[in-house]
């Protein structure tokens, strides 16, 4: 399972990225591409193979507000968490 955490701006995405990386969680940043309007997509962090609850907990620890989390299964099915 891959999670895409969507943020309003690159600042908040970077803040969360640096915070999660400091917790030992591998993330990669990029422009949002799922279920978001083309011109106002925000930025996402892509995180693989994590438990959604622990991921939410870690994001809460980082103190960064995110817009939403979208999960994508290996067969390509995606949904908002």
């Amino acid at each position, binding site marked *: 399972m891959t999670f895409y955490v969507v943020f309003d*701006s*690159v600042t*908040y995405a970077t*803040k969360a990225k640096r915070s999660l990386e400091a917790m030992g969680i591998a993330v990669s940043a990029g422009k949002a591409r799922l279920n978001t309007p083309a*011109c106002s997509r925000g*930025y996402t962090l892509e995180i693989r193979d994590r438990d959604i609850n622990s991921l939410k907990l870690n994001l809460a620890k980082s103190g960064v507000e995110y817009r939403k989390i979208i999960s994508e299964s290996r067969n390509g099915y995606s949904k908002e968490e």
Partner: protein
Amino acid sequence: MIYLDNSATTYPKPPCTAEAMNLAMKKFGANPGRGGNPLSLKAAEEVYKVREKAGKFFNAKPENIIFTQNATMASNMAIKGILDSNSHCLISNYEHNAVWRPVHRTCSYSVFEICDTQGETLYRLSGMLRKNTKCIICTAVSNVTGRIMPVKAICSFARDNGLISIVDASQAAGYIPCDVKDLGCDILFTSGHKGLYGPFGTGLLVLNTDVQLKTLIEGGTGTTSNEAHQPPFPPERYEAGTLNVCGIIGLGAGIDFVSKYGERINEKEYELTADLRASLVEYGVTVYDKEFNFTPVTSFNLSDVSPAEVDERLSTAGICVRSGLHCASLAHRTLGTHERGTVRVSIGAFNTRRDVYALLKVVKNI
């Protein structure tokens, strides 16, 4: 050449500032927050690291660090973001024109006196409040005399009276602690090229509370782009247009420099300034605000020679100082020097005792 005008801008800058800017020019050339390509993301991360450094330096959240082109820009953003023609504000009698002029244009205002004691200052302030008083603005340090102002008490007074407090830290950042939580201010602003040893074209607006300002400039922010209005959240709300990435990264290096060596630098600057002041007094020169705590800024006048002439004599001897009103008419009116100004000497990290002696030698012979 001896440079003693560090209040205008510190010079020279530490090599790390230029090196960081050079690296930024070569390596982080894409536009941060304007795309998902690796170079843009890398630039964004490098900019964010400077927000972290500045956030640590001022004890503020990284996202509450707003990059501006200078302190004047930040001051205008704060003042015009809060005040309007229906509101009233209080400004100190030591404010720089970067505060006085935008306030004068924007709202009604009263000038309060920084008295000899904190109690007297607050007592007078309390008598100046109006129904529509919205904020208090005070410089943390006078750019004319280096006098350290009781901003913590003034911010506390503002809070107790439901007012927004704005602190001008242009002459304070890098010289005295500027922890926004400790000061208790709502907003602090500063230049980046003075005591923080960053390059020209950098300034900071630091938000300590969730105060939301009206925007001064609108435009592209790389986020919420479908909306006609600016995003509601900092820093993007206040940073329309492409950022000065090289400048910001240079500022980050300057902050690193001050964070690492600041204590030692400040100690030396203080000693040199104290020696300078003592010698000037010994020569019978008038040193302004000498009875108060100070940063490494000294304003003086010779009784029978104009500041402009002293400046010229020093320039001829290869010593750079600044005479005149220092863009701070209110402060000079307070000191009674608004007709001709003063000679200002400001010491920086790279000045030595020899520099001070050279200046004293010229002054003694005038």
